[in-house]
């Protein structure tokens, strides 16, 4: 068990699906050889296929204390990179349309804004995903090389690139499919929670660049941190697929607002815009209690009262949203 644990909370009510976090991460960490298909941070439309597609349905994680490895996702599940034949159009003077090749069949953010139907209404929301830096990482357990370790000082899960031999048991074991294999180096890679930034007191790049200001970062065990308050005090943030047994340290404020059209004033749980079954699928049965708590906060604010929870979730400035404690981690860690 780590002495401290960095955690992130993402308020899905605020996510615009703009992918700025995705690009911030990509430019910083995965703009190298072999990393083209890697998205340590991706934003997917839910309901939807996800990236790699169907990652939530193929397995991974723990059951009765045993690892439940899935098959390895294939490049078809990630989607092959395609190029456009600009050459013939722009330089050879051929009037053929500029078509992508190979024919795109899947890819990151492939089914953006498709969503699902709730009765006759279309609905969707966005779920940004990074490595969950789990308390009980299935990837760590699966690695016969002991190349994966959880940093004792801050709970960040990283892959030692010197020890990794590219066996990919970690990818099979991760229920969130947040480890990627680099065939050029022959090693696996994953989100490092921007630990080099945190060590300098800077927040993660995905959080720093987020125009929606939906990310909160801090130590889960620091009573002053926003993540501690949102997860442990107010209890309004939940991990994704808690039944996978890894105990993620990335949490989500579930989407609950706005209400359905012509439904103003009614309880969101009574006639939800988003099918509650789908939210239960993603966040477990406790999501209904969380929405009840959020709805009560909303009602209090609407009645002219003050809601500390909503003030925190608005997150007006960086001091509210982030509490990075490099000194605490270094001195006490």
């Amino acid at each position, binding site marked *: 068990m780590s002495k401290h644990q960095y955690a992130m909370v993402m308020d899905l009510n605020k996510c615009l699906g703009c992918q700025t976090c995705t690009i911030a991460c990509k430019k910083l960490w995965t*703009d*190298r*050889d*072999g*990393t*083209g*298909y*890697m998205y340590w941070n991706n934003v997917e439309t839910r309901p939807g296929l996800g990236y790699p597609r169907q990652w939530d349905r193929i397995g991974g994680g723990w059951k009765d204390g*045993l*690892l*439940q*490895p899935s098959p*390895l*996702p*294939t*490049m078809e599940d*990630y989607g092959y*990179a395609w190029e456009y034949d600009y050459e013939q159009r722009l330089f050879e003077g051929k009037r053929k349309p500029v078509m992508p090749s190979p024919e795109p069949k899947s890819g990151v953010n492939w089914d953006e804004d498709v969503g699902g139907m709730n009765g006759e209404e279309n609905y969707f929301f966005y779920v940004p995903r990074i490595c969950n830096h789990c308390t009980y990482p299935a990837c760590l357990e699966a690695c*016969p*090389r*002991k190349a994966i370790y959880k940093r004792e000082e801050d709970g960040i899960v990283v892959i030692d690139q010197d*020890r990794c*031999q*590219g*066996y*990919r*048991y970690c*990818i099979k074991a991760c229920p969130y499919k947040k480890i*990627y*294999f*680099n*065939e*050029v180096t*022959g090693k696996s890679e994953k989100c490092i929670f921007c630990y080099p930034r945190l060590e300098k007191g800077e927040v993660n790049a995905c959080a720093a660049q987020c125009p929606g200001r939906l990310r909160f970062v801090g130590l889960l065990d620091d009573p002053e941190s926003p993540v501690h308050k949102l997860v442990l005090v107010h209890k309004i943030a939940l991990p994704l697929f808690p039944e996978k047994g890894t105990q993620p340290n990335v949490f989500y404020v579930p989407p609950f607002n706005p209400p359905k059209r012509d439904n103003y004033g009614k309880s969101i749980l009574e006639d939800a815009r988003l099918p509650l079954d789908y939210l239960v699928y993603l966040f477990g049965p406790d999501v209904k209690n969380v929405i009840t708590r959020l709805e009560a906060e909303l009602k209090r604010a609407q009645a002219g009262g003050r809601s500390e929870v909503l003030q925190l979730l608005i997150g007006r400035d960086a001091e509210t949203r982030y509490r990075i404690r490099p000194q605490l981690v270094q001195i006490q860690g």
Partner: protein
Amino acid sequence: MRTRQLMILGSGLLACAGMWGQTAATMAAGQTLSVAASSFPADNLLNGGPAAWNQVAVKHVGLNRTPPLYDTDEPAALEIPVVDVRLARTGGKLLVQLNWHDPTHDAITLPEVPKTPPETRFLKVPTEADDRFFDAAAVMFPTKPEAGAMTPSLQMGDAEHPVEIYYWNATRGAMLMQAQGRGTTRRTGQSFPANASYQNGQWSVTFELPDLPPGTPVAFAVWNGSQKDRDGRKYFSVWQVLE
């Protein structure tokens, strides 16, 4: 001497049978491997055709399959039951040639990575596939061969008996590794001369090793990429002894 060797091999056999939950009866037993004194120079044995090896006797070494790593893994079929081993000494080197039948050729040529830093290039080298594994083979022997000593653990040696592993991968080439027990294998960053060819469903891989004294235990391993072999998921022989 012969009795001692048999006893050592026997105890090694029981050790791995116990550790891996297999019955000793299913394990191919260790044997003595004769080493030819070759008149060909090492380069000829490494890179020459079959002519250089024609006079060298072949020994069929039985291979075993490691059990599944996960309870949920399907047990793998014994598709490669035997590896043919030829050994020759010349010019202070020990040349080891392994031949085995494998109808699936799991090897690729990795795309060339430009020498310029990736951040200076618009295009990066892509990962073409994330789920393929490659054929491979290895020769393992004790780092400090001692006549009559206990053989190291077959699972990559042990703390008292470190091992050298000459590993060849059909895609990534030859690399020297060292280990002191299961999970401790590390790349030394060094390579060694090796040559491989694949014809008619048959791999032939020649390793150039430093000369090893008579009585040295050696063990062999083969990985079949199409069976998703890597790590301990492989074919292995029990310890054999150099004549």
